[in-house]
């Protein structure tokens, strides 16, 4: 493999319902930095059915070029069809780096593409850098349940690929005057060649827990003691209009559903305020919430690691402190309502 032939940084642009996924915009921001450092173009790879206009968005967020596969066969994401497009495009245009969001779609696609191209793929990356001279992508990620960070390199294969966690990289502010070049691509692909069919898509927006978009999260851990004890977390969250989060221990104990789990094997969150209640602060939890605006920990063990990771810590029994806190916050919000009445 002649590594010199490979040039440029690419981002797979995941799209749904006429929108580019937020993580793809974040990756355009991260990819822009890598491309500038290398002095190469940043390109988006856009695959879908009637998605051409999304290229404009990609340009505004930093892409120089968009490779476009626009065909009804790409109406639904399917591994086999999307994979064929990505592979064809990579083989034709030879990027040195290809990034995907670490979403269910991004991970599925990247795993398949890496196998066929026999190249390296780093999963769930949280830090990206590139060596200016060698062009080696330095993809770092938490490993072993977040106990260590590891930097992964792919020295002899191209493209260097990584899936990147949502909410870790920063999107650039969109520039409405920024434009770029659309390169239209096509592959001969017939429906009969695709061995899977999407029969139906069921969106569960009402039931969905939007932890990643919550402004305030109240999260409970093992210290809540039982499913009944965990109810206090729900009460507190409800009282202040927060979303409920949980540590892995609380989820594994069956006190709450996995979709509430914050951390390495759960969701990464960046709320304005994060309450960690009865959560000891295992590293695998911290990696999922440490970028929150204000972290408040309540724990009866004064030596719990969570106190090293919070802005303010309350030492004591959650069952004593939280009811007092609910009371105080409610009294405060009643006052607000009164003031609000005058305005």
């Amino acid at each position: 493999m002649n590594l010199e032939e490979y040039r440029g940084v690419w981002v797979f642009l995941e799209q749904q319902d006429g929108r580019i996924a937020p993580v793809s915009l974040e990756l355009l921001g991260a990819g822009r930095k890598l491309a500038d450092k290398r002095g190469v173009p940043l390109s988006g790879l856009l695959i879908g059915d009637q998605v051409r206009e999304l290229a404009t968005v990609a340009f505004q967020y930093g892409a120089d070029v968009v490779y476009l596969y626009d065909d009804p066969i790409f109406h639904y994401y399917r591994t086999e069809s999307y994979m064929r497009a990505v592979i064809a495009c990579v083989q034709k245009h030879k990027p040195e780096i290809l990034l995907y969001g670490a979403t269910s779609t991004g991970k599925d696609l990247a795993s398949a593409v890496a196998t066929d191209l026999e190249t390296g793929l780093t999963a769930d990356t949280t830090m990206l850098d590139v060596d200016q001279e060698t062009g080696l992508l330095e993809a770092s990620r938490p490993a072993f349940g977040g106990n260590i960070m590891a930097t992964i390199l792919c020295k002899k294969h191209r493209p260097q690929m990584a899936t990147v966690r949502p909410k870790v990289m920063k999107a650039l502010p969109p520039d409405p005057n920024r434009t770029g070049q659309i390169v239209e691509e096509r592959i001969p692909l017939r429906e009969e060649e695709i061995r899977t069919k999407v029969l139906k898509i069921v969106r569960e927006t009402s039931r969905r827990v939007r932890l990643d978009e919550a402004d305030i999260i109240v999260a409970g851990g093992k210290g809540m003691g039982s499913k009944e004890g965990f109810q206090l977390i729900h009460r507190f969250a409800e009282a202040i209009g927060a979303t409920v989060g949980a540590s892995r221990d609380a989820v594994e104990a069956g006190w709450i559903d996995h979709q509430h789990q914050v951390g390495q094997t759960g969701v990464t969150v960046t709320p304005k305020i994060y309450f960690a209640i009865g959560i000891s602060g295992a590293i695998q939890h911290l990696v999922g919430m440490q970028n929150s605006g204000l972290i408040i920990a309540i724990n009866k063990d004064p030596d719990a690691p969570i106190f090293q990771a919070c802005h303010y810590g309350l030492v004591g029994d959650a069952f004593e402190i939280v009811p007092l806190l609910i009371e105080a916050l409610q009294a405060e919000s009643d006052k607000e309502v009164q003031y609000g009445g005058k305005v």
Partner: protein
Amino acid sequence: MLHIVACIKQVPDTKVIKMNPKTNTMDRSSAPAILNPYDAHAVEEAVRLKQRYGGTVSVLTMGPPPAVKAIRKCIEIGADEGYMITDRAFAGADTLATSYALTKALEKIAKQKPIDLIICGKMTIDGDTGQVGPGIARRLDIPPLTNVKKVVEINKEKGYAIVHRKLEDGYEVVQSTLPCLFSVEKEINEVPYSPLPNMLRAARYQPVIWSVNDLEDVDRSLLGLKGSPTIVAKVWPPEKPKGGEKLQGSPRVQVNRLMEILAEKKDLFRAKEGRA
């Protein structure tokens, strides 16, 4: 009659693993080796499908000799047969080299008894990648179905499977041809306590063990460290947060102090209340 193969891995329990603070390395002896929790659900689903449609459940692992214990755990859950590939040649494999070695073993198993379905856990708790399952599917050229949270139907006669795949905001109902590969979510089932006869069988169970020489058409340059395009260049402990202010006093005093702090940062709450 279905032949289902579950691919499983023995992993250190990362929840209890301890770090050596001096060397920043993992003290592996501190963590018990367990069956990867996601894989237990894969095996359980295979056993349930066998109960529903009839057939055989095999499990396959790659690992050092003590990984036999993880296979025995699968026998407890209800698997019929266990296969293990173990060889120094496999050591140091990343996900690409791992999927290659497992594929070679699957090809050998399939020669003895054709495979209808392969089931993997969503990911392992030590690697956390979820890349090996789809990798195997690509190498065998069968459709990979990741994030499976429910199996609706397997129809061997007509050659298709229908499953629910979990998405960020719901799920999709997908039909695939057979054979295919599922990697399954934890929520797909609950693994019950094993029945006593299974436990008795598991205690004495010896899996089929193959070395690299027992596999056919193996390109050794694709195995282990040599066959791995990715290398770990550096490991370091995650940045230690600096730590914040521990409030002092009785619960009520602490809560009052926190209220003062929150009052200073009122704008944090305001956005939320404005929306609600």
